[in-house]
């Protein structure tokens, strides 16, 4: 395996800001155009490399392009310019419990959700006990998930996702699910992950958890990559930019 897990190469992502958007045929014909829009570059020529085995944090204020970049990494959006290349299997955790069907049992949903996240049936069967154990909903696994409490729902979803076992895991701010006990379990899982030499890319606003978990970080601001490198100096630079010298 090479040293670079993910290479983001001059990535730019454009969105259209619609002043007028004609999503129906009638308005398109009546107005004589599909839309009036201007381009908005959510990411501008962002490039960095994520070393294999590192835990990589994406930080920045709201609207800085973190989530857009995350969605590009997760192959939900495709950048207009530049490429993203991976080494190994990638899984993205942007939402927990994607595709859960409320009327189906927890067991059925584990298989459904697992296969949406790209696991094979064999894999899920093998990890099933581990997933259920991790989620802590053993007693209710054969109940329809609509009867679950929101905490149980999220925990089951998270337990499936964390067991996908990719080489690169992309995580949005989902660490903050469940009670303290469950969060501790998650933290332990991330440490195991790291020890197994896997790469984690995460987005968070909670600087102390970024500081605690990440060894590398990239700071985005208005679609530009401001700084990238070791976690601590990057976070400090970001934090001091926030205070803007107003306090000191």
């Amino acid at each position, binding site marked *: 395996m090479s040293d670079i897990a993910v290479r983001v190469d001059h990535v730019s992502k454009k969105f259209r800001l619609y002043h007028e958007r004609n999503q129906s045929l009638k308005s398109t014909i009546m107005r004589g155009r599909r839309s009036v829009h201007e381009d908005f570059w959510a990411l501008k020529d962002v490039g960095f490399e994520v070393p294999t085995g590192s835990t990589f944090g994406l930080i920045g204020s709201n609207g800085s392009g973190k989530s857009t970049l995350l969605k590009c990494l997760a192959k*939900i959006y495709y950048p207009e310019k530049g490429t993203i290349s991976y080494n190994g299997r990638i899984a993205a955790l942007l939402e927990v419990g994607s595709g859960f069907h409320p009327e189906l049992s927890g067991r059925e949903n584990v298989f459904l959700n697992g296969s949406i996240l790209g696991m094979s049936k064999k894999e899920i069967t093998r990890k099933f006990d581990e997933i259920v154990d991790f989620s802590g909903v053993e007693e209710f696994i054969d109940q329809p998930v609509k009867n679950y409490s929101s905490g149980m729902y999220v925990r089951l979803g998270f337990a499936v996702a964390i067991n996908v076992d990719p080489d690169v895991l992309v995580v949005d701010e989902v660490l903050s699910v469940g009670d303290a006990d469950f969060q501790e379990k998650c933290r332990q899982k991330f440490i195991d992950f790291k020890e197994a030499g896997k790469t984690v890319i995460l987005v968070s606003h909670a600087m102390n958890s970024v500081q605690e978990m990440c060894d590398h970080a990239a700071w985005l601001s208005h679609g530009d990559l401001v700084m990238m490198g070791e976690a601590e100096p990057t976070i400090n630079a970001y934090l001091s930019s926030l205070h803007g010298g107003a306090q000191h």
Partner: protein
Amino acid sequence: MRYLKEVLDSRELLANLTLREIRGQYKRTIFGQLWSLVNPLATMLVYTIVFAFILRVAPPPGDPSGLDIFAVWLLCGLLPWAFFSNTVQQGMGSIIANAGLVQKVYFSRIVLPLSKVGSVGYNWLFEMGVLVVVLVLCGSFVWPWLPGVLVMMVVLAMFAAGLALMLAVANVHFRDTQWFMSIVMQIWFYLTPIIYPLSLVEEQSEIYDGLLGTDITILDIYRLNPLERFVAVFRQLLYDNRWPDFGDVLFCTVSAVVALLIGVWVFRRNERGLAEAL
């Protein structure tokens, strides 16, 4: 070819999504799967009363089976139509219905419309099974023709899948598509000889003969409709119990392959933009 491999790799996901539809569909109903029979049966009852009893439409008896029961004759055409129509309409809405999923997880999006083909197809298979029982009870010797029926079911599923794929993409960009298609499907239904026999169209066509001084008759135009051929083939197999007309089978197969190829092509070209367009 790489795309084909990607789709093949998602076959487990496709199976799971299809199961989700099937299992979720009739949850918490008392009659469960029987509900899938109620709709065609109710339609059959209404049409039989209106067209066989009031308007006295008399389709030719099955040749050589000798069957002469309007309701059964109707079902042989109505069930394939209902499958087609439901697949197209549900497949068309499948991307929008799963918008949350499309915007949060990466997977081969084509499985969404295809899972609808699978779940509607499952219901259809069940309905066709009941139809076979009815046919046998009515004295039809349908058994040797069942493999042919199964093949044609797959061909019709391909045709429906192709249309559903094209329309699913169109529907993401223009939400008018679903409303427009509900009208189109209604017109299409009446332009297909499901509730009346083709012979009535033939008679009218002979009166007008060649249109505008050409050799093209109304019947020629009428028979361009692939569903007309599908219904004809299903009736030949199930109701008449004979080898279907080769020309009809060829027409069905070619239109199914063309529809599927265009559908996959259109879908593939637009797949990447779907998450944003939603």
